[in-house]
């Protein structure tokens, strides 16, 4: 028990009553109760969901350290995609009890198997728009009322069988950049800023295209 307390940094708290402990300390005690049993597998069921934001980040790091130190397999259930991305070696994304994708965190981020996974992994969530695939001058275009994007060759190859059909185009907020002179027109667009969220390390812009609002409104931002 003393070893477990030392691992968790709660040795000085052992004589306290539960009501004398903070939320984070109680979480550590709960972990300690599990550690002393030397389990072959830990099952964490949303262990950080009732903590405030700051403590949740601290405990997330503690759990990561604990996992590295003990080396015990852990199954961690969470609705928080940041916890899934930072703590998981392999992530299983489920919807309505059905597995949507299994993979390493960056695999899910870079190659989501479907729209649900794409919208769940990543923060802010991926933007989506309904477009129709068309062919013009040997290239494939993604079109909507007012939108005409020339698809890159790699993407076009995968969409040869979808000419004339509607597909959903997805782009992550971090994959949009302020256009420079080197950016080709067919991948650029003008938009008007509606909301500015200053986060210090980045700026989030909630935007709408003014001249072609009917198309631009088609972009949706999944809300969590």
């Amino acid at each position, binding site marked *: 028990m003393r070893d477990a307390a030392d691992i968790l940094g709660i040795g000085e708290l052992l004589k306290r009553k539960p009501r004398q402990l903070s939320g984070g300390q109680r979480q550590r005690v709960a972990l300690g109760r599990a550690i002393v049993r030397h389990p072959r597998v830990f099952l964490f069921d949303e262990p950080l969901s009732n903590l405030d934001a700051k403590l949740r980040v601290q405990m997330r790091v503690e759990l990561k350290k604990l996992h590295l130190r003990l080396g015990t397999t852990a199954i961690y259930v969470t609705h928080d995609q940041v916890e899934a991305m930072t703590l998981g070696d392999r992530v299983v994304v489920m919807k309505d009890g059905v597995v949507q994708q299994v993979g390493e965190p960056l695999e899910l981020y870079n190659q989501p198997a479907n729209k649900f996974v794409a919208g769940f992994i990543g923060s802010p969530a991926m933007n989506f728009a309904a477009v129709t695939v068309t062919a013009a001058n040997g290239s494939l275009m993604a079109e909507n009322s007012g939108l005409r994007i020339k698809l890159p060759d790699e993407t076009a190859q995968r969409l040869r069988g979808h000419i004339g059909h509607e597909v959903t185009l997805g782009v992550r907020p971090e994959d949009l950049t302020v256009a420079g002179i080197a950016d080709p027109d067919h991948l*650029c667009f003008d938009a008007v800023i509606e909301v500015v969220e200053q986060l210090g390390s980045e700026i989030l812009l909630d935007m709408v295209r003014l001249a072609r609002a009917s198309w631009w409104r088609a972009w949706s931002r999944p809300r969590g």
Partner: protein
Amino acid sequence: MVASVEPTTRVKVRDKLRLAMRPSRLHVFDAKTEAAI
């Protein structure tokens, strides 16, 4: 639509901004099955 831009970008509400998509980072999904294409 949401864009994440560099913290040094000087912007304010109602500004017009020209954005570019990174072509290698576009995702496409089937409209009916929602599976990645």
